[in-house]
């Protein structure tokens, strides 16, 4: 066996209020892998999970590169890797289910459950058995999953099964759910740095067994390519942390960067002609001006109230009993936009009920709301120095088509034509900027 190959990498981690993101760059500044998870209340766990996911994706990238470099496999890599990823996810999920089983049994061992312990253990085992059985369906090609986070994915299944198996007079729903709540923490706190290494082999073999036309020779090459990726020595040189929770990261101070700078640099990396960046996240809105190197020259953030941020749309969605992603398309169906002046989260519910009560249509109200949010963003943009060409929009709200429409409209009205950039990966902007800072810092120190 040859020496494992080695690659120097730089990592950026963005601890946001809603999600935590990680990006891994190679020493040429190319993105190797990305990871994302819910921030929850525990930033340490969130940071670790996002990192691990980014490492897994990085190894898949390396596998894909190895395939591309192999004349026998070249051309197959993109479809194959996608299938391999699904297969890997299934194995990983099953592995985590086994962790969950152990943790549930440990929870059942609590003296509190002494009187009915044996029954309780059986129920918990049965739930996990069923989850293992139904797992493949979740990861079939083209299957839609509500979330890729284990906590959400397993949680949803577990709750359904718990409800079905609970006995109000015996082991009730609350007891079964209680076991999950404590077990999931144990599962999340168990590090699985080697997740790729422990599951990729089985995932590959399953795929090859089921056969999809690979020749024996190709299979051998595939095994070698995956083995290369598996054994790659990913040499982490510098990790930079950013985002709202950055102070909580166990990093030395010089490796912590403000998310403003990271967003600026990240947006510049995605769209090199960016001059102005607008980021609307869950808790805050930022307007940033950058120079031609991605250096921030001016910025403004919303004041202490979260009016007009992503969280506000969340309240509205809850109030209307809609999914967050449904708001934009519904607003786009509006024909008579209602004028809304307040984007105060405190009054959002009351105002909405009032307007609906007056017979105003949901889509017209929503159109007004999206415009109101963008008017607030416009004032921050004006404070930071206006909207220059090109203009890059990032953050969760950038995925909302009605918000984008309203923004385009207002920008054009006030500043004239501007090229607007929105990346499907915009959620990783801050983490990417962080990783780029890590690389710049390291390379600067070497020079």
């Amino acid at each position, binding site marked *: 066996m040859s020496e494992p190959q080695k690659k120097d990498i730089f990592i950026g981690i963005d601890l946001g209020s809603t999600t935590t993101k990680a990006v891994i760059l190679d020493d040429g500044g190319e993105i190797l892998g990305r990871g994302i998870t819910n921030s929850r209340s525990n930033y340490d766990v969130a940071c670790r999970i996002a990192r691990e996911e980014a490492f897994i994706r990085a190894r898949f990238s390396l596998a894909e590169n190895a395939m591309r470099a192999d004349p026998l496999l070249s051309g197959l890599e993109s479809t194959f890797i996608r299938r391999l990823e699904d297969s890997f996810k299934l194995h990983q999920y099953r592995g985590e289910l086994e962790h969950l089983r152990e943790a549930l049994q440990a929870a059942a061992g609590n003296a509190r459950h002494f009187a009915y312990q044996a029954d309780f253990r059986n129920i918990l085992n049965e739930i996990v058995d069923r989850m293992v059985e139904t797992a493949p369906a979740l990861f079939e090609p083209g299957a839609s999953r509500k979330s890729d986070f284990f906590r959400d994915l397993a949680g949803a299944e577990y709750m359904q099964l718990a409800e079905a198996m609970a006995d109000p007079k015996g082991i009730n729903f609350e007891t079964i759910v209680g076991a999950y709540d404590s077990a999931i923490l144990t599962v999340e706190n168990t590090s699985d740095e080697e997740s790729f290494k422990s599951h990729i082999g089985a995932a590959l073999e399953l795929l090859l067994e089921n056969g999809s036309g690979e020749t024996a020779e190709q299979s051998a090459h595939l095994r070698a390519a995956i083995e290369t990726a598996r054994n790659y020595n990913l040499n982490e040189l510098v990790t930079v942390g950013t985002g709202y929770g950055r102070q909580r990261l166990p990093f030395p101070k010089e490796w912590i960067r403000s998310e403003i700078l990271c967003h600026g640099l990240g947006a510049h990396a995605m769209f090199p002609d960016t001059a102005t960046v607008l980021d609307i996240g869950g808790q805050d809105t930022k307007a940033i001006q950058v120079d031609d190197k991605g250096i921030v020259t001016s910025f403004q953030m919303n004041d202490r109230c979260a009016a007009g941020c992503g969280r506000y749309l969340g309240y509205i969605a809850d109030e209307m009993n809609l999914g967050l992603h449904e708001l934009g398309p519904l607003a786009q169906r509006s024909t008579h936009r209602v004028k809304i*002046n307040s984007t105060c989260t405190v009054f959002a519910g*009351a105002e909405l009920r009032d307007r609906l009560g007056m017979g105003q249509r949901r889509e017209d109200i929503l159109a007004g709301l999206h415009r109101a949010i963008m*008017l607030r963003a416009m*004032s921050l943009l004006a404070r930071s120095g206006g909207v220059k060409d090109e203009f890059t929009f990032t953050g969760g709200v950038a995925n909302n088509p009605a918000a984008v429409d309203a923004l385009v409209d*207002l920008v054009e009205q*006030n500043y004239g034509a501007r090229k607007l950039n929105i990346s499907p990966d915009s959620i990783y902007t801050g983490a990417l900027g962080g990783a780029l800072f890590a690389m710049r810092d390291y390379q600067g120190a070497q020079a």
Partner: protein
Amino acid sequence: MRPALKTLVDRVTFLYEDLDFTAVKEWKERTGGKAVGYMPIYVPREIIHAAGMLPVGVLGGGEGLEIIRGDAYFQSYICHIPRSTVELALSGRLDCMDGMLFPSICDVIRNLSGMWNMMFPDRYVRYIDVPQNYDPEVGGSFWRREIAELRADMGRIAGREISDDDIRNSIKVYNENRAALDDLYAARSRTPWVYPIAELYLVLRAGCLLPPEEHTALIREYLELAPQESDRKDKDHSRVVIVGSFCEQPPVGLLQTLERAGCWIVGDDLILGLRWLLRDVDTEGDPITALSDAFLVHSTEAASRYEPGNAKGSQLIASVRDNDAEGVIFCAPSFCDPALLDQPMLVTALDKAGIPHTQFKFSEDTGQFAVIREQAGTFSDSIRLWSEV
């Protein structure tokens, strides 16, 4: 509604809704004269008028103006009127003003005068600092000097010297306007159902845009026409005085909401600057001294004016008594320092006098009145029950 009244109401409604100051532009075109804007609260309009210019009350953008640029200049804890006023200016709507006067209302409007200086360096701007000392030899002497400076400035903008007779004549014109407004308010107080609050307010407000002579004629005409509407009948409403809206104005819809909720508004401090002086200004002698004395002695009680002695609230209570009102509604703009700091003192005075009161805040662009409707309805019911006991 008969056609003549409809025409009148349509006209004042247009004046209210038109954010482009079309009436001002038309007046300038027709007469070749100039226009000088002023923010709410007192400025001696007689001086502007005496120069042959049109004094124009600028009361923000109300509910109809979308704020795109104005918010960039103000933090969230500052009231709404400066945002919409900046919006009006940045969108070119105030280009028809040949000058802007910023009276002493509060720190926000005061600072806005300096902002204007920097944002529009080539336009005439003046901060009108009224005296808070009412001794004719002390505050009066200062104020006479300020009026004299204003007179010189207005003369310069108009391109002509302002004579004493010019000012005396303008004093007469405004005395007549004051008399007409007094008649309007007296009529409203006697039979509020004949003069619905929205009409009353819009007729009053037209005084911000029309030359005073025209405004006086309009009020007189309205006083003729409104009683001819035979379908205007008394209702089982309570009678209230509202206070707090002297600067930033509530939307007309809010006033209508109060009326529909069962409150006849028989006293108010809406657009107080138009009704600042409580008596006629002397038309004899030195006109500057006459204007100054009128301010020192016959100014209305207002939150932006220092109240010497212990009379705080006495005018409000008198207004309640004189108008046979049963309660007071505090209706102040959010973040309005003078109104909101005054309120606890007025509350103390009302409590001592046994006058019931309630309160809410608004912003000029408040779009939703459901909560206010509920509150005003409950208040109206409660004071009627209370007064029956």
